[in-house]
Structure formats: structure tokens, C-alpha cells
């Protein structure tokens, strides 16, 4: 295992310590409790927006804490949902008196732990709304699965919902927008290589030199199917087509196109995928009105990418374009 780490068990805490010193203007970090909090939280009268999940997906979620996006993030161990205690502490830390939104990616662990945290917050008199993201079209039928996974849309949702929360909109409205964003977005991912969980010490799966996994999640797990290596254009087609169909995108629609790297793929390749994607969308007269290209929701050093398309309307444009100032996403002020 080749990693820039010290002891596997110290990975999360040391990275948090690094983040604290790197971004003192934006965030504060409670290293013991493992929470990253917006520097000026809690903001009275503003809905607190928090999220959390396993570590290893950086910059998500800690890199999205700051003005216009998240008020706090709770990182768990690598690929492991954080615990209710963290979520409760974060909820309390960002409660500005008008309630807190929990953004939960749909994984059994995340859902169960956030569920317990919400119960605990409720017992302390804090109003909590939970929104579960489940945008991964690789997982087809929720009758036979734990339901679609929450992947790329989570990033876009955190930005957009954070933008609305900044206007001091009430909790119900913030939660409603979150559900709408989740409904209007879909994703699918693929891997060229596996990744290695530091505490496990070996790759999560093995893959031949000419093979790839299609339909992966973000936890280093194998995907829905293993197929022969293909060109960027073909891979983009494999990912984009199910998304376009599932979303029912049609000529004239405006989308945010998000090409995300899994961590080990260089940016130059992500732009090649973006080019392939824009050709496909162009061919269908679907307009790319906004875009995001880079490593935003990752699986450690896995090589590969995911594509997310989000159907935009006037409300989503407004809050996507709103100012954001976090370690990983910044614009507009």
C-alpha cells in the first residue's frame, strides 16, 4: 500500500488537523469530535445545513463547509458512516434557532446513523429535516436493493440548498428545494482501478489491465458489471445514456453537466470526458447551461469518473450561481 499517511488509524484526525490550519478563514475543526464547522456558525435565524459520511471522498463533505454551502460536516472513518454523536454535535453547533437540515446520502449506514441523530436532536428540542439523496442510476430497482445510492447530485444539492439557506429561508422550504434537486439529478460512475482503504491495506477489488467496472458507487466497491476497457467516448456514452433516459431529458432542456473524477484520474482526462459528454448532449439539443469538472466526490485514489446531469430551472440557476466560499468550491464574491 503506497500512501502518504502515517498510521492508518490516524488518517482522518491528521487530515482534519491539516484542514484546520489550511483554512482558518473559512472553517473551524473539532478534531476530537470529528466535525468541521463553518467559521461563523451558528448564524441566528439561518437554517443550519449539515452533511456527513465516510472519509475518503474528499473534498466532500468537509471541503464544502463555508459561506453559501454547508454549515458543518461529519467525516466518519474511511468509507464508514459517521456516528450519531458527531451528527448531534454538529446539529447543535449550527442550530441558529430555526432548525437544521440533514443531507444524507442513501446508504444503509448513513441513513441509520442520521436517523438516530435526528431522534436525539428531536429529544433536545431541535427541529431537524432529513433529505436523502439517491441519484445513482446504476442501481436500478429499489425493490431488490437498499435503493439508489446517493452520489454526485449530493455535491450540487449541497451548493444549491446552501445558497437558499443563506437567504434565511425557513426549514421547510430548504428541505423542499433539497428534495427537488435530488429529483432533478441523476448520476453514474465507472472505475479503471480499485482503491485501497488504509486500514485494510489492500485494493478493494482486482481488475485486469484491459478491464473496467461500470456502475460503481463511491466506496471502492466493484460496479454492476465488468467490461472490456473502452474509449473515453464509449465510456461517456455508457454513463450518459442511462442518465438521460432516466431523467427523461429532451431537446431544449437546460442542464448542469458535472464530470467528476474518482480521485486518481488526471484533470486532462476529465476534460476529455466532458468533451465527449457535450457532443452527446449537443446531438440531442440539450443545453449545458452550467458545468463542473474536477475531483469533488471521490473514492480515495481510484481512477475513473462519474457523470451527473441536473435539470436546471430558474430557482436552481439562482442558487447555483449564488456566492459560495468553501475550501473546495468558490465563486461569486
Amino acid at each position, binding site marked *: 500500500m503506497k500512501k502518504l499517511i502515517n498510521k492508518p488509524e490516524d488518517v482522518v484526525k491528521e487530515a482534519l488537523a491539516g484542514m484546520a490550519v489550511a483554512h482558518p478563514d473559512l472553517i473551524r475543526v473539532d478534531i476530537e469530535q470529528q466535525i468541521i464547522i463553518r467559521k461563523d456558525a451558528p448564524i441566528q435565524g439561518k437554517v443550519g445545513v449539515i452533511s456527513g459520511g*465516510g472519509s475518503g471522498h474528499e473534498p466532500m463533505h468537509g471541503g464544502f463547509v463555508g459561506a453559501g454551502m454547508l454549515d458543518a460536516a461529519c467525516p*466518519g*472513518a*474511511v*468509507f*464508514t*458512516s*459517521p*456516528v*450519531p*454523536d458527531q451528527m448531534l454535535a454538529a446539529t447543535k453547533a449550527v442550530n441558529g434557532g430555526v432548525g437544521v437540515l440533514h443531507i444524507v446520502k442513501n*446508504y*444503509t*449506514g448513513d441513513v*441509520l*446513523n442520521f*436517523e*438516530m441523530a435526528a431522534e436525539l436532536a428531536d429529544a433536545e428540542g431541535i427541529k431537524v429535516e432529513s433529505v436523502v439523496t439517491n441519484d445513482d442510476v*446504476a*442501481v436500478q430497482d429499489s*425493490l*431488490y*436493493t*437498499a435503493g439508489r*445510492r446517493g452520489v454526485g447530485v449530493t455535491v450540487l444539492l449541497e451548493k444549491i440548498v446552501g445558497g437558499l439557506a443563506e437567504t434565511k429561508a425557513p426549514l421547510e422550504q430548504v428541505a423542499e428545494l433539497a428534495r427537488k434537486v435530488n429529483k432533478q439529478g441523476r448520476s453514474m460512475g465507472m472505475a479503471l482501478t480499485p482503491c485501497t*482503504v488504509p*486500514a*485494510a491495506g*489492500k485494493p*478493494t*477489488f482486482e481488475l485486469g489491465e484491459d478491464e473496467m467496472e461500470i456502475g460503481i*458507487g463511491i*466506496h*471502492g*466497491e*466493484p460496479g*454492476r*458489471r465488468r467490461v472490456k476497457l473502452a474509449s473515453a467516448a464509449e465510456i461517456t456514452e455508457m454513463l450518459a445514456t442511462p442518465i438521460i433516459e432516466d431523467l427523461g431529458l429532451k431537446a431544449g432542456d437546460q442542464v448542469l453537466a458535472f464530470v467528476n473524477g474518482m480521485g486518481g484520474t488526471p484533470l486532462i482526462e476529465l476534460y476529455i470526458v466532458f468533451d465527449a459528454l457535450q457532443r452527446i448532449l449537443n446531438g440531442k439539443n440539450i443545453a449545458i447551461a452550467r458545468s463542473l469538472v474536477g475531483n469533488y466526490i471521490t473514492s480515495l485514489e481510484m481512477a475513473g469518473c462519474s457523470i451527473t446531469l441536473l435539470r436546471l430551472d430558474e430557482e436552481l440557476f439562482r442558487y447555483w450561481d449564488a456566492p459560495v466560499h468553501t475550501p473546495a468550491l468558490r465563486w461569486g464574491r
Partner: protein
Amino acid sequence: MTNEDIMNWLTRTADVLQEKRSYLTELDSAIGDADHGINMDRGFSAVREKFPAMTSQDIAAKLKTVGTTLVSTVGGASGPLYGTAYLRAGSVAAGKQELSSADVIAMLEAFLGGVIARGKAQVGEKTMIDALTPALTAAKQALSEGATLAEITSRAAAAAEEGAKATIPLVATKGRASYLGERSAGHQDPGATSSWLILRSLAEACEGKQ
């Protein structure tokens, strides 16, 4: 089962989960995210650290301490599931200084009930439940046949082992393994396996018990 036997059970559980840490993680690597052994060991190592503080606690308090500790340290799916299981097991033991065979079975039933209440899974979905359910059935059967506590718990553990192994051909429909669809078949479920190890530790703690 005395308070001391409970302590013995928990110690053995912490030991075996530490020992099988890589094994459980490898099972999880095949159909999950390669952390189940790490998660369980982290949780029970935290429990172990509480052993000194637990000596003065009664059975119910001990089990509740385990439950809250797991909830606070494990994360993932298994944290809330096992956490709730131990919390419910503790409730059943409330006020008891010693557990009869029937009490132990009630405790197991509450344990399984906690997993079901939290995770909403059914038998055959390739989860912990597939080890815990046959174990409970076997324990009840043994009790009705007038078996000793040692026999009851060892038959429960044996049924759990069989149940865990029987998850191999199953296609998962709950938890992370369900994302793999058909590809989840052919691998033993890590959670069912840790459930079996927990019950095997119980049987070991009850060895020779009437």
C-alpha cells in the same frame, strides 16, 4: 448466566472480533466496502476500554453500555444495527441479577428484534438476520427439548454458523451488497458472519452452564 458470564461473553466477543478483523474485512471487500472487520474491532475495542467502568454495572447496564458504545464508535450500517440490538437486549435484562435459559433466549429475541426494527430487513436478504434468525429458532427448539444453557447456546451458535454460510448463494437485497445485484451471490455476508462470532462467544461463555 451470571453477571460474570456476561462479562466473559463480552470479553470473548471483543477478542474474537479483533482476531477476525482481517477476515471480516475481506468478506466485506468482496461485496461491500472493506470495513466490517475494522468497524467491529473499533467498536469492541471501545467497549473493552469501558470494561473497568463496567465491573460495577448490572447485566442490563452492561448491555446498554455496549449498545451506546457501539452506536457512538462503529458508524456504518453495523453500528446502529448492533447498537440497537444490545440496547434492546439490555432492556429485557432489566432488574435481573442472573439470566435463566428462558431469559437468555428472550435476550436473543430482543437482540434480533433490534436489528430488524432498525434495518427493516427480512430473512433471505443476506444480512445479519440470516445468522440470528436460525440461531433463535434453534435456541427455542433446544429449550423446548429441555437442553442445558450450554447446549442451547451452542446449538444457537451452530445454527448461526450454518446461517452465515447459507448466505453464500444468496443475492443481497439489503445493505451495500445489494448494489452488486447478482454479483453479490457466491460470497458470505460479513454481518451474518460477525453475528455468528458473537453467538459463538456466547456459547463459549456458557460452556458447562445448566
